[in-house]
């Protein structure tokens, strides 16, 4: 299961993760935490090959059909988005001529496409291609469920001429910009013929980006070459090769022999296997946060978790600092709310509650949970405070979370039973709300809208409010947040939500764990954005190699 969880980290919208899977962490020095880090020096020059790792084989290079982070890695070189976020998290036009224009009622978003853009076969890119792409996403016979979710609030798309797009939304919806940034057009003249799902172009795409497909050998590698007719700034690298290497240990071995230039490493690899002189002289070691955090969810339907004071007491009882030191060797950063720590929506001045069992016991007493029969377990109205903490099978970190909580709760008169469930059963029970408490992680969008996770309307099956959290103030703030288009006003709204959630917490917010990635020093132009080194515009498209063509990795 940890494998699945680790794959989620890049492209996902609010994807569920098993808490702390993969055990990524970061030392206090925060080498590349949030600020943009650039290593490039000197003049970029053309030539050279970079070899990257795919942790799993790609199934398709059709932008509409892709689902995994690895496919996204490759597609980001083959296609251009209409609009995207840059390395600072600002919206920028790519295929669009300028930034989108929002109508006064916020329902119509107009985008002008550039008129000099073309597919890699020379055919111009037009609004019809965008319309075609959106139609395919919304086609019930196309499994594009992960992209469909962005457009469920979209009423329709108007294309009055070849270069104008008007997205018409059913209601004002601030995350709509982010949704449009997730729409990367594919060519109608290629994909419009024959069966969409088995189109040969799914394996031999005609893209719009600075690189084009060179060769795809199933289960082995995907090789891209620079597209010299690109309508934007030409790339420097001759080739980018993505090698499929499933095993972490083997991948690290390949990094050492020069058969790979970069990979994501595990915490133990980071701490123990990549610290020798030879390695450090050849690789820059990056660690950076992602829009992701781990938490323990409390099911507010249960009698003991109905009271916000009890939920806060649980947070006070959970020694997150010690978790940080024990499990993440001091890496990971504690979080106090449901937003990405490096986003404008997160208020850094709001500190996480401390570890304070005394305070917790006072809150529990106030809430009426006292040990009335003297058996060492708190009770109220004849019900004992005993609950089940559900964790996913195979997640070591979750197990350690659970043990620590069990121990601390025991000292304060609460009995915790730990229950391990296999991945599918685990998610199934969460979806049905059949749990007392569970450990999980979220991967977030760049847009901070968390309506689906915390609004009281969004209990399953309508949304992701699995614990049936309900707070009237939070509800109305969430509603306000999605119709407010001014970033500063919106930020204030989310800061207030974060503050309310200290007193009335839906979860115990635990931490955000950085990803660790060594990248060969011979590669220049590496930029770490709020979404890591790849998931922004232009991502790794303008990497370059010191000695150009001579800088080929020391192959075999």
């Amino acid at each position, binding site marked *: 299961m940890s494998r699945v969880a680790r794959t989620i980290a890049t492209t996902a919208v609010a994807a569920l993760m098993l808490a702390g899977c993969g055990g990524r962490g970061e030392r206090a020095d925060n080498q590349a935490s949030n600020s943009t880090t650039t290593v490039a020096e000197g003049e970029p020059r053309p030539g050279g090959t970079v070899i990257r790792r795919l942790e799993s084989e790609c199934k398709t290079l059709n932008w509409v059909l892709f689902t995994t*982070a690895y496919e996204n890695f490759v597609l980001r070189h083959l296609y251009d988005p209409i609009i995207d976020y840059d390395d600072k998290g600002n919206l920028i036009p790519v295929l669009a001529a300028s930034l989108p224009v929002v109508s006064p009622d916020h329902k119509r978003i107009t985008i002008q496409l550039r008129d000099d853009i073309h597919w890699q076969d020379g055919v111009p890119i037009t609004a019809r291609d965008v319309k075609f792409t959106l139609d395919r996403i919304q086609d019930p016979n196309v499994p594009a469920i992960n992209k469909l979710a962005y457009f469920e609030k979209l009423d329709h798309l108007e294309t009055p001429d070849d270069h104008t797009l008007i997205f018409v939304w059913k209601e004002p919806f601030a995350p709509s910009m982010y949704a449009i940034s997730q729409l990367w057009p594919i060519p109608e003249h290629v994909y419009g013929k024959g069966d969409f799902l088995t189109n040969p172009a799914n394996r031999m795409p005609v893209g719009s980006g600075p690189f084009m497909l060179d060769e795809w050998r199933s*289960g082995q590698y995907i090789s891209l070459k620079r597209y010299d007719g690109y309508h934007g700034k030409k790339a420097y690298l001759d080739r980018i090769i993505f090698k499929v290497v*499933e095993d972490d*240990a083997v991948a690290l071995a390949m990094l050492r022999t020069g058969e790979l230039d970069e990979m994501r490493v595990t915490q133990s690899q980071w701490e123990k296997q990549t610290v020798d002189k030879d390695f450090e002289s050849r690789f820059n070691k990056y660690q950076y946060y992602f829009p992701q955090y781990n938490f323990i969810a409390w099911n507010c339907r249960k009698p003991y978790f109905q009271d916000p004071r009890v939920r806060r007491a649980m947070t006070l009882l959970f020694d997150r600092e010690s978790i940080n030191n024990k499990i993440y060797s001091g890496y990971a950063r504690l979080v106090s709310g449901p937003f990405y720590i490096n986003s404008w929506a997160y208020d850094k001045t709001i500190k996480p509650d401390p570890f304070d069992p005394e305070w917790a016991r006072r809150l529990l007493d106030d809430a009426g949970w006292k040990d009335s029969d003297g058996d060492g377990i708190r009770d109220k109205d004849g019900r004992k405070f005993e609950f089940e903490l559900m964790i996913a099978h195979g997640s070591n970190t979750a197990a350690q979370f659970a043990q620590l909580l069990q121990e601390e709760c025991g000292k304060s008169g609460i009995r915790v039973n730990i229950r391990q469930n296999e991945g599918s059963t685990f998610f199934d029970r969460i979806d049905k709300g059949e749990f007392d408490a569970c450990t999980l992680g979220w991967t977030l969008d760049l847009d901070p809208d968390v309506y689906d996770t915390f609004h009281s309307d969004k209990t399953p099956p309508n949304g992701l409010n699995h614990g049936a959290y309900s707070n009237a103030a939070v509800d109305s703030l969430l509603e306000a947040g999605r119709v407010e288009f001014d970033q500063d006003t919106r930020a204030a709204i989310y800061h207030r939500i974060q503050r309310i959630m200290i007193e009335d917490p839906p979860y115990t917010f635990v931490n955000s764990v950085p990803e660790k990635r060594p990248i060969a020093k011979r590669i220049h132009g590496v930029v770490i954005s709020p979404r890591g080194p790849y998931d922004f515009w232009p991502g790794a498209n303008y990497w370059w190699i010191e000695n150009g063509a001579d800088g080929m990795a020391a192959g075999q």
Partner: protein
Amino acid sequence: MLQYTLRRLLYVVPTLIGITIVTFAVINLAPGDPVELISRGELDARVSPQSYQNMLHLYGLDDPIHVRYLTWLKRLATLDFGDSFLDHRPVSEKIAERLPATLILNITSLLVALVVAVPLGLYSAARQHSTFDKVGGTTLYLLYSLPEFWVALVLIMFFGVKLRLLPFHGMESMDARDLPFLAYWWDRALHMVLPTICLTYGSLAYLSRFVRGSSLEVIRQDYIRTARAKGLAENRIVYRHVFRNTLIPVLTLLGLLLPTLISGSIILESIFSWPGVGDLFFTSVRARDYPVVMGLSFITAILVLVSTLLADLLYAWVDPRVTYR
């Protein structure tokens, strides 16, 4: 013999039906489904129940399980394994694409194992209780008990990383096809060394002990004593009389090895990024690509069935003493 063959063939029918039921049930009753994996495990969770149902329908997963079984069976009867959930290509095409890689590795490994194991076993048997027999036996048992993935990683670290002698990823180097003919095949041969070693040492140990055991049985036979008594040279006895008769059980065993030739090693293929059937199976299980997993499981099961049958018949054929009623 003919009657025996026919009867054995008749037994195959209920077994076959049993295989399809078990294969289908095990895979389809496991928790989770592919749509769930797309919608939740890997990516977006904000999927409306309606879209989720649409997707289930698209994959034909919204029918009751017995209906799905019958549909699958019907297609299977025409040897149609269906299309992959992942890339919508026919399952047979995906398997065919991966088969050569697995075959070349496994056949090489089997040949190496035979070439080494048979003489080794014979020699050990001929010199039972000698130092060679004892040391050899212990070493082989030791090898047999070493886990493949561990040996693979140790070999990779030593020969691949430290000495940089041998490649350990895939079937050939990048751009190997631009090399001259001989250099290209040399490159491919080098890529086979480590996977072959890892795949072979276990079966080598097993096979050679097996050969030793069955030779010992033969050596105790009366006709060997007769051969010795009439003054035949020991070499001649071993090669003419012992060896040939030892082959009978070995042949049977080889029949049973047939399915493993095709199904491939899941662990080794994924460690060495060897693009074979085992690697395909691993990827498909992880992605819950039911048609591929079911197709592969079914093929493997069929091969086991066929090879047992074949082994039985072979046994009857090579050993005229074996009679069947």
